[in-house]
């Protein structure tokens, strides 16, 4: 099956500054792809290129098999939702929804029907006669989604659509967007800097940095097998613990650093791994504490530095040697700073990265 969106060797430069470098990306039919990265990584820029709002320097963009590289945004068969909603303030909700259709010269009956259908899907029928100023943030965002919906397109582009909302509403609308995707089954590209949004919504995530895609994979792949140190540290909260040490592959694979030395028998090495300086990363949720630590192959005696109770579980920062490590403990254990705490982990759940290139070993 042909990809819904295909990007080939895309390059974008503003003068001498290259923002996107030879980027290649295929998005499947009906796929929900999330572009994830910190600000300035080029994710929104890439979305604007796909939408045709930025003129690209080199490369090609195909949507539904059609080369749209030189097409106007309105001719590309896309709908777009913006972070600031970008509703036309002087038009009613109905006017906002029908603006694009009127520009396309559709007959009145067709416009009315499509607006009614979108309003029904998004449950904004009672709001149709209101102006955007009279809507709440969540309602505005729904209208903005509706504006993309009425266009009857195959591809939806979301540019950080939930970033302006408060935490509770964001979680609600996130669920709604996921439901909408399941219902409509069209291709969606979603830009965000929020890893929770990315993990929960995406079929695949593309993690970007400096105008390049660092890793493209399902949320599970990204979480379980981060391709490099950047991805490993970007996904997960708190950040993955990183130990700086040496990998020894001579007899039995082992890793040694200033606080511990342990065997890596069970670890799934990439082929061709050799000895040398390396990072060993372990996620806080894979670091056990207290009694559970006793059963772990690697154990450390540490001192509690900081305790962050979250209710469902508790984050503990411990000091081991000169290192600060995070651990996630289940429930609400009775912990307080300056107490000793035994932690333990299974090296097989860890991640090894080359010290030179930060590439996964």
């Amino acid at each position: 099956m042909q990809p819904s969106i295909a990007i080939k060797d895309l390059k974008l430069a503003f003068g001498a500054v290259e923002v996107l470098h030879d980027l290649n990306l295929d998005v499947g039919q009906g796929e929900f792809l999330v572009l994830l990265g910190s600000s300035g990584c080029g994710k929104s820029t890439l979305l604007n290129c796909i939408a045709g709002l930025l003129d690209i320097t080199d490369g090609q963009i195909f949507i539904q098999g059609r080369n749209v590289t030189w097409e106007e945004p309105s001719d590309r068969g896309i709908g777009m939702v913006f972070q600031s909603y970008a509703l036309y303030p002087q038009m009613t909700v109905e006017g906002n929804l029908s603006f694009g259709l009127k520009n396309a010269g559709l007959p009145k009956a067709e416009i009315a029907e499509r607006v009614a259908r979108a309003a029904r899907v998004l449950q904004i029928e009672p709001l149709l006669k209101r102006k955007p100023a009279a809507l709440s943030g969540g309602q505005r965002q729904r209208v903005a989604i509706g504006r993309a919906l009425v266009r009857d397109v195959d591809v939806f582009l979301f540019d950080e659509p939930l970033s302006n909302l408060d935490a509770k509403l964001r979680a609600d609308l996130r669920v709604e967007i996921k439901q909408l995707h399941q219902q409509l089954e069209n291709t969606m590209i979603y830009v965000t800097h929020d890893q929770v949004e990315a993990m929960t919504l995406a079929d695949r995530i593309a993690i970007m940095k400096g105008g390049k895609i660092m890793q493209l994979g399902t949320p599970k792949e990204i979480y379980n097998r981060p391709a490099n140190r950047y991805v490993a540290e970007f996904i997960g909260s708190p950040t993955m613990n990183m130990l700086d040490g040496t990998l020894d592959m001579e007899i039995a694979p082992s890793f040694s650093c200033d606080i511990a030395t342990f065997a890596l028998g069970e670890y799934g090495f990439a082929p061709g791994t050799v000895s040398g300086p390396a990072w060993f990363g372990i996620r806080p949720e894979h670091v056990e504490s207290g009694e559970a630590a006793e059963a772990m192959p690697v154990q450390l005696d540490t001192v509690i530095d900081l305790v962050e109770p979250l209710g469902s579980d508790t984050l503990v920062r411990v000091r081991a040697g000169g290192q600060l490590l995070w651990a996630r403990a289940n429930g609400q254990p009775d912990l307080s700073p300056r107490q000793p705490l035994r932690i333990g982990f299974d090296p097989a759940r860890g991640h090894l990265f080359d010290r030179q290139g930060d590439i996964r070993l």
Partner: protein
Amino acid sequence: MGKCRDIEHAPLRAQAETVLTDYAAQSRDGTGPRGRKPKKRLSGRNIMIYGTLFVVSVYYLLPLWVMVVTSLKGMPEIRLGNIFAPPVEITFEPWVKAWSEACTGLNCDGLSRGFWNSVRITVPSALFSIFIASVNGYALANWRFKGGEAFFTILIFGAFVPYQVMLYPMVILLREIGLYGSLAGLVLVHTVFGMPIVTLLFRNYFTSLPEELFKAARVDGAGFWGIYFRVMLPMSLPIFTVAMIIQITGIWNDFLFGTVFTRPNLYPMTVQLNNIVNSVQGVKEYNVNMAATLLTGLVPLAIYFASGKLFVRGIAAGAVKG
């Protein structure tokens, strides 16, 4: 009953008295400072502020007062010399004379001729310059076209070139295209010279509008004019008001272009006012001069009064919103 209560509360009251100086206890039982901090009406600071404001406004309004009272006096009363005194006998004769009878050169139909000339100059000039400049500003802010920055720089540079430098070339230009001495020529001159500052005004305003709105309209398939008329214009009332005020008052008050580019029968109101006031024959009719001056200033004044609130909002919108 009453006696009984007295006995019971006596020790409590004694305790309360000793506590009065205990500030911690005060705040505990709620008797200490609470709520909004009281402000003194007649502090030294307030006297200074209001005093200064009063003096400055008197200084500013006194000339206006003199003009109004003088224009309502007859000449014999003016000759008494009390320029600050209110008129003993109010007469509107000077106003009527200034409007319809005062002589300038050969014409003796007062300022009315100049008024209508000014209207015929100001209205088209303001409309043309504002329309063109708003489209300029919109194109510069939203449609990043090649050479746009250079164009803008040149335009801004134009705003700093003194008008006097361009007077003579402009005269020749108008003569060559056959518009010299006509109202159309003057309208053209005003439109051209208003361009830099009004374009700058509009460009800055449109830049301050969220860019995503423009992007959304493009995705919705609106073109250059579609976005301008249906998305940008309805959002720009405040800045249009500001531009209107700047252009109407500026063109109405213009004297230089009015004298240079027109003929006597087409002189705008300002030029005619000057000719009335500075005429050397006969008696100086101060009351008529004052009335004529007030009449000429009435239009800009009315515009400020009518649009004051919108004007402030427009200035603020252009300046603050980022």
